[in-house]
């Protein structure tokens, strides 16, 4: 009640001021309107705002240029006829959903960002990580694959988190990111025994033979190993994430939002899982 009275008083005070200074009020209102209009008209895509010329070209030519470094099987490799792999399939799927023709341009890894910068390609799908130093001009999508370190355990004794390994043994690949993470967790838990192996496959084999309770290895090795063997399973989430993302130019706001939308659909309807399962 008191607040309502205060509000009424405040309105009455402002009303008085407006009546007292009609010209000032008029100028202030016009200035505010101009500011709002200016803001609205200079938004991306508005009359005075920046235009997404890449999107315009894609709509006119019906093509989408994608930069890929084909030296990373099974994500991308140079087959005799075309570029094959998970990332090539993802590029083609995005293009199909945008109803455009994908044009995959192959290039060395160090040239990927330069090609994107100069407009040679519209997007890069090549196992990139988010690089905070480039976010002033690069727009990164959500991750399409997490290649991080993941726990692999026996299906009859599943392990989801590394905390569950307190007092147990974890097998890791020597000097890998999993090894580094296990060393950190050794300091956090009461007792975590770390067994090191030269290769990730050796670490997972140790879990199968009962030498270790779980292995902390990279997701790519884990998927390839589990494809051929039974009795082991991966945790639902990685312990040390390492997401691969699509890079686009930030100025191409229509393309980025369209790709984000398509990628969300591809993930939601299970197409991404199908593509990943095809290669890993």
């Amino acid at each position: 009640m008191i607040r309502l009275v205060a509000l009424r008083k405040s309105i009455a005070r402002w009303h008085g001021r407006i009546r007292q200074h009609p010209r000032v009020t008029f100028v202030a209102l016009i200035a505010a309107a101009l500011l709002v209009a200016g803001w609205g008209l200079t938004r991306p895509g508005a009359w005075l705002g920046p235009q997404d010329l890449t999107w315009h070209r894609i709509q006119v030519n019906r093509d989408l240029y994608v930069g890929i470094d084909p030296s990373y099987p099974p994500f991308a490799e140079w087959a005799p006829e075309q570029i094959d792999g998970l990332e090539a399939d993802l590029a083609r799927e995005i293009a199909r959903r945008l109803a455009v023709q994908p044009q995959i341009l192959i290039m060395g890894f160090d040239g990927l960002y330069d090609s994107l910068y100069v407009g040679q390609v519209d997007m890069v799908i090549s196992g990139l990580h988010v690089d905070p130093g480039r976010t002033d001009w690069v727009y990164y999508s959500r991750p399409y694959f997490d290649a991080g370190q993941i726990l692999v355990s026996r299906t009859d004794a599943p392990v989801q988190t590394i905390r569950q390994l307190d007092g147990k043994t974890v097998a890791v690949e020597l000097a890998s990111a999993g090894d580094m993470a296990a060393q950190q967790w050794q300091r956090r838990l009461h007792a975590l025994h770390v067994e090191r192996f030269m290769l990730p496959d050796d670490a997972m084999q140790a879990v199968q033979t009962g030498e270790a309770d779980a292995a902390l290895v990279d997701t790519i090795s884990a998927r390839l190993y589990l494809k051929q063997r039974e009795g082991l399973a991966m945790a639902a989430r990685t312990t040390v994430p390492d997401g691969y993302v699509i890079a686009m130019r930030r100025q191409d706001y229509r393309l980025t939002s369209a790709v984000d939308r398509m990628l969300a659909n591809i993930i939601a309807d299970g197409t991404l899982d199908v593509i990943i399962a095809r290669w890993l």
Partner: protein
Amino acid sequence: MPQALHTVRRYGGLAVRLLLIWFALEGPAPAPPRVILGPPQTVETLHPVLCTHTRLTDEVEEWKIQRTLSMVREMGAATIVEFFPWPYIEAQRGHYNWAFSDRIMRHAENQGLTVVARLGLVPAWARPPVVEKVTTLSYLPYDQFDSFAAFVGVFVARYSTQLGAVIIWNEPNLSGEWGNRPVDPEAYTDLLRLVYEAAHAANPSIVVLGGALAPTLEPEGSGSGLNDIRYLERMLEAGAGAYFDALAVHTYGFKNPPQADPEPNVINFRRVELLRAVMVRYGYSSKLVYITESGWSDDPRWTNAVRPGQRIAFTLDALRMAESWPWVKQVCLWDFRQPSDRQNRRDAYYALVSSDFYPKPIYEAVQAYARGWENPYQP
């Protein structure tokens, strides 16, 4: 006079206020890090064969040069290979700017490191004008060989006490490193002769390293380059053996362990034995071999790379193997660190230390080997 006083009073206050604002704004700006040489250091190592190729050529900040070289010392490597491009020092004919090389040499000396200087590239004045011919930085016209030799002589004279050796050119058996021209072992021999004479005139005890050939299988007539073994044979047939004191060799393992047998049609670590055999066959068995580039990459996305644990095991085995060869003087691991890991992925995964000075497991393993400590990355 009163008018002048009035003006001073009027604008003097304003000037003082502006000065205060300037100080207030400038004050919070961080001062550049001070780089001062500490007391001279010495390298503690059980394995003097260990050396590493640093990448300080394009390092802008002096503290990074100092930090890099102190980490090299702490690792237990007593020798570094560093690249000193000719155009950086003699951008104008006869005018030398030593600031870049002095800075590196000063810090290397302070850390107790011996420097093997790799010399190469060509300043614009020594290349044909662009209107006449478009050339790359590695294009050294034959009529400028003596200019390069003169530069090497001046360089050796300046750093006579700090230099362990000088490497003459880099990978001349690749056309890209030979000015995008067909490779020419006989011309390289001419270059070696002129440089050898100039370097020894400046310092008779300097070690001139020839070769530094890229391990490649390119056949005769290839547009890309020439097989390193054949190139060395042609060099020696042209008389190069008299114009270098030791052979510089680049040998990489790629996916093979160091124990893999040497074969002429395979690139692996023991390819150095094939080059050594050529030297022996041509009567130069007394000349030592400096492995000025070697190593394994653990890049997860390169088909020629190995896993991180394999990299450690292969590198340590290679060092032990090379130590058992009496004809090997140094094994220089490519590369210690590079200014920016974002610009060159291939070399970033060869590096022992990240751009932000994070020591990788391979660094700690090599350090443990060199210092006689227990390997923290024992399988």
